[in-house]
């Protein structure tokens, strides 16, 4: 693997490409023939933590010689028929239209004068037809430049292109300038690099569920130097939680778990920015914060939390890690196969529904109002065992993956396997996500990358209790 730049998050317009779409695009553009190739990306749109985000939903490959042909003013151009079909789809589906082609080079890229002239000739008309954002991208394997023509008549450069794969890659037109990180982080910056450490300080990370696993995640994220944490949990501290909540004190009983987590994060890193949401994750306030994050840790073991986080991942193309511990104990006290699960939920690469990790009936029960929830459960639930070292094992696996992904240190971009750890038999193995071809969350036939026009956005914009 060629060494490539690590770019911290940039302010401004961004484009996120689901890993599989990026792989398909790379295979099409960066071929051994050394020639130029083209395509169109159709993308949703949403607010993001550092500016507006374009969310790639679908890749339309332009076939050489048929859809990508010799140009009248440049070397190659998309054929009129291909452009017409694509722009009509962009209009009908309310998606941005991004024409894509490749240039030679590796770490740097820019539009040629011929490229920019063709944008000026063609994009005003395309925008009139679609009434959506139109633009052009030019790519090398390590760099992307973009010229966006916005709906209000203005024009903006694309600040970065994000690929949330095994590594959380950020491509810019040119590599970010090196900056020296604060000496405070010296020992970990020796691993992450200054740009890797700087990346952490710009990231906005959500932790959903602040119990045994979540409290460990918050503590470590703060100590690693994550810039901003969004802490979501509707529960208060119970006396039986104290043994497994990091730095909990007797006086914390009955306080919101968000309060305890915020106190710990601030104590670990006084520079950290915190947003606390003492609500269930499906509450509109929680969803609004969730969809503006760079990464989500799901440490709440409810089917409702799984459903809503899963929806946010795929509709807004935000990578997530689900962290859980299962300790099966039968009614007569027999202990089954304990396992911890650290599941990557990469946008567009299978989902919690495809992998049968959400139960439709349990989801229905958990969506009942508090007063009805337990009554609706025909067979009452029994609290599961929970032990701090097992929670820590799962949290540590999740954080290690996140840390390496943020600094682009994983050796394989395409390794999106989840880790199942069985401590009783001292086994650990990887599990790849399965994907149903018609899934309504993680495929382009469903809500993938729909952002502000997707189901989640429509739901949390509807009339709900505040």
């Amino acid at each position: 693997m060629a060494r490539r730049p690590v770019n911290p998050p940039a302010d401004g317009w961004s484009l996120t490409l689901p890993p599989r779409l990026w792989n398909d695009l790379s295979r099409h553009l960066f071929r051994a023939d050394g020639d130029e190739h083209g395509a169109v990306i159709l993308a949703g749109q949403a607010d993001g933590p550092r500016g507006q985000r374009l969310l790639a939903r679908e890749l339309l490959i332009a076939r050489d010689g048929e859809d990508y042909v010799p140009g009248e003013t440049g070397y190659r151009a998309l054929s009129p028929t291909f452009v017409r079909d694509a722009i009509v789809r962009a209009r009908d589906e309310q998606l941005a239209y991004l024409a894509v082609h490749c240039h030679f080079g590796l770490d740097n890229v820019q539009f040629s004068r011929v490229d920019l002239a063709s944008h000026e000739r063609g994009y005003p008309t395309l925008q009139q037809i679609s009434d959506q954002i139109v633009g052009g991208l030019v790519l090398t394997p390590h760099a992307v430049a973009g010229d966006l023509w916005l709906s209000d008549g203005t024009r903006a450069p694309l600040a970065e292109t994000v690929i949330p794969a095994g590594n959380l890659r950020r491509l810019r037109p040119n590599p970010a300038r090196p900056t020296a990180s604060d000496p405070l982080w010296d020992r970990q910056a020796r691993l992450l690099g200054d740009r890797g450490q700087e990346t952490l300080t710009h990231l906005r990370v959500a932790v959903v569920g602040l119990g045994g696993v979540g409290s460990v995640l918050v503590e470590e994220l703060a100590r690693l130097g994550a810039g901003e944490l969004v802490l979501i949990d509707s529960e208060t501290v119970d006396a039986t939680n104290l043994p497994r909540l990091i730095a909990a004190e007797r006086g914390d009983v009955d306080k919101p778990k968000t309060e305890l987590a915020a106190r710990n994060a601030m104590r670990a890193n006084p520079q950290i920015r915190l947003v606390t949401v003492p609500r269930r994750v499906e509450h509109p306030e929680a969803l609004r914060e969730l969809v503006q994050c760079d990464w989500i840790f799901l440490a709440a073991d409810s089917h409702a939390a799984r459903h809503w986080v899963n929806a946010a991942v795929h509709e807004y193309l935000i990578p997530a890690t689900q962290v859980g511990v299962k300790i099966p104990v039968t009614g007569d006290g027999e202990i089954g196969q304990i396992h911890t699960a650290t599941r990557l939920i990469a946008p567009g690469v299978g989902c919690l529904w495809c992998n049968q990790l959400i139960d439709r009936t349990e989801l229905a029960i958990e969506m009942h109002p508090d007063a009805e929830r337990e009554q609706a459960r025909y067979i009452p639930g029994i609290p599961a065992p929970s032990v701090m070292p097992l929670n820590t094992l799962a949290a540590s696996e999740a954080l290690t993956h996140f840390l390496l992904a943020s600094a682009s240190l994983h050796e394989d971009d395409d390794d999106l396997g989840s880790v199942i750890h069985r401590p009783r038999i001292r086994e650990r193995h990887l599990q790849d996500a399965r994907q149903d071809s018609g899934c309504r969350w993680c495929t382009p036939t469903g809500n993938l990358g729909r952002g502000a026009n997707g189901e989640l956005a429509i739901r949390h914009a509807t009339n709900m209790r505040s």
Partner: protein
Amino acid sequence: MITLAPAVAEAVEAVRLHFAGHPVEVVTDGAGGVFVTVEEVPVGTAYTSSVTWLGFQISAAYPDADIYPHYTGVLTRADGQPHGPAIQQVPWQNRPAMQISRRSNRRDSGVDNVALKAERIRRWLADQ
């Protein structure tokens, strides 16, 4: 006036269509879903009253979430026998009710819908 997400609004319409001629009350659950009550639903001669109301929640997670459980008015069996499994008496929406707990384990959200399940529950109850 309740503003509903399209999937919930479509589900309510499907219920109204299926139970055409029956009064259907729709009340927001405050979290993006609704509580629905269909009045004067026939449940057959196994009960001392052959019609009752049928209630359920369509949550904000519909169509991914099942519709579960269902509720009816309190019914007494005509043969004097107690109700079987999956039925228990509870209060629901401030009125006495029977809770009917019938899961749809193999539910396909693309095919099944709230009206079909309500009809299955009605028939199941009538057949008890």
